[in-house]
């Protein structure tokens, strides 16, 4: 494994963004960072700024008003970047699918790498999703330009 890949898989930093969810997934995502579940043991850190983040964890259905912000935050993140859709709403829009102000799941706006369904998913499920994402990063090929 080369140095770049080692660095990427050992310390992926997560940026959390709620696109209009009910908070349920947010508190479970946050709980995954606290002592009982502790994803920090994988080198994962919750990060406030998109410019420092590798993984964008999105919770909630994408509302019309937040759409633009979501895209802007995604564009501010440095390459390579990954998107984790946490919760049924982020996966498909779930109960808010046919609401007038909701576009749907995150995949209508951004490319999603891992879906974690559940309403809300338990912290264990979120950890499982993150581990799957790390495996995906490990399997990726890196070209000579480091991409």
């Amino acid at each position, binding site marked *: 494994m080369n140095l770049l890949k080692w660095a990427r898989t050992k310390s992926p930093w997560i940026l959390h963004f709620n696109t209009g969810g*009910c908070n349920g*997934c947010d508190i479970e995502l946050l709980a995954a960072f606290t002592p009982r579940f502790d994803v920090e043991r994988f080198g994962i850190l919750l990060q406030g700024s998109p410019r420092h983040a590798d993984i964008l964890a999105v919770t909630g259905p994408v509302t019309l008003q937040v759409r633009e912000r979501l895209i802007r935050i995604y564009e501010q993140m440095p390459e390579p970047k990954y998107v984790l859709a946490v919760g049924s709403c982020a996966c498909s829009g779930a109960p808010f699918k046919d609401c007038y102000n909701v576009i749907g799941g995150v995949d209508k706006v951004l490319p999603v790498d891992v879906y974690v369904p559940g309403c809300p998913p338990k912290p264990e499920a979120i950890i499982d999703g993150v581990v799957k994402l790390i495996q995906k990063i490990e399997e990726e090929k890196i070209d000579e330009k480091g991409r």
Partner: protein
Amino acid sequence: MSYGSMIKVPFGPQHPALKEPEHFLFEIDGDIIVNVKPRIGYNHRGIEKAFERRTYIQNIYLAERICGICSDAHTTCYTQAIEELLDVEVPPRARYIRVIVAELERIHSHSLWLGIAAHEIGFDTLFMHLWRDREAVMDVLELVSGNRVHYAMNTIGGVRREIASEIIPKIIGSLDFLEKRTKYYMKVLRSEQTVLKRTVDIGVLKPEDAVELCAVGPTLRASGVKNDVRRDDPYAAYDEIPFNIVTDDGCDVFSRILVRCGEILESINMIRYALDHMPSGMLRVRVPMAVKPGEAVSRVEAPRGELIHYVKSNGSTRPERYKVRSPTLANIPALCKMLIGQHVADIPIILAGIDPCFACMDRLVFVDVKTNKKKALDFESFRKIVRKQRELL
């Protein structure tokens, strides 16, 4: 001291202080906040209109998903409104179970908030400790309802699950642990300089302002005003369970912390009492699918304050109009008042001080400012407006 120039600082919608998207525009003079303009609506999903398109039973599911932290308060409020329309009496055992779940939720919500508050003042050690201990109440909720966040306990005419006698010792054990820890945290919070320096005399809301600006819940009680829906307009079994309303005269962020700690201890005692005195009997009564025409308003003391649901029925299986007034919305004017005259560095903790829950809050009303006329739109016209917007994107 004035520097003679006003700087505008945008805050949000994506920001590290809150987990939800909301925008605030601060006008600052030097380091002092002069004016604040909240811009709400990033979280608006159109739930009220969605209510009108689903049946009463399906709406229980939707009401729960207004907010993930006070989900039980929303379903209690929803089912109470429908029960009032149907003229249904909830069995006594169900009323006690509603209280137990509601108070467990209050413990979980308040300890969650205490952790967030500790995080906002940069005291992450306390945040981690509080959230570790919070898992005890999450386990109890999972034991009782089968889920950690959305409990799905309430249904129209009662509750859906029994609290079996064999799990009661486990609940009591967790409550003892939580009581011990909460008392310890109160001792720590009262003496720890890291907390005192950041919260005492920060975000002051005087009692007369709190009443005038219609603050609710712990924000109001921390300004020394004794107001609690559980006492003023008892619902479920609150009229049979003794409890104290916790207030504090500090009017600042620190007293908001103390009020919430005190409420956790009160809730623990209430659950103990409810478990001891729970009557036996049925859990729910069967209700018809269609609801007779009428209007009903229901009030519940959610962890964040007074929650109001309004329903209008036209005799079919779907509500004609549904309205939610959440506690966070009621606290926004008070929040703006608290922020003025404060330092920029204190913005996160003051914002967090009202325990904002924007998922609950983002509703919309059209008010034409020039003529002061209010407009009501039906689902199709909403669709049209939104379609137009989408084409523009």
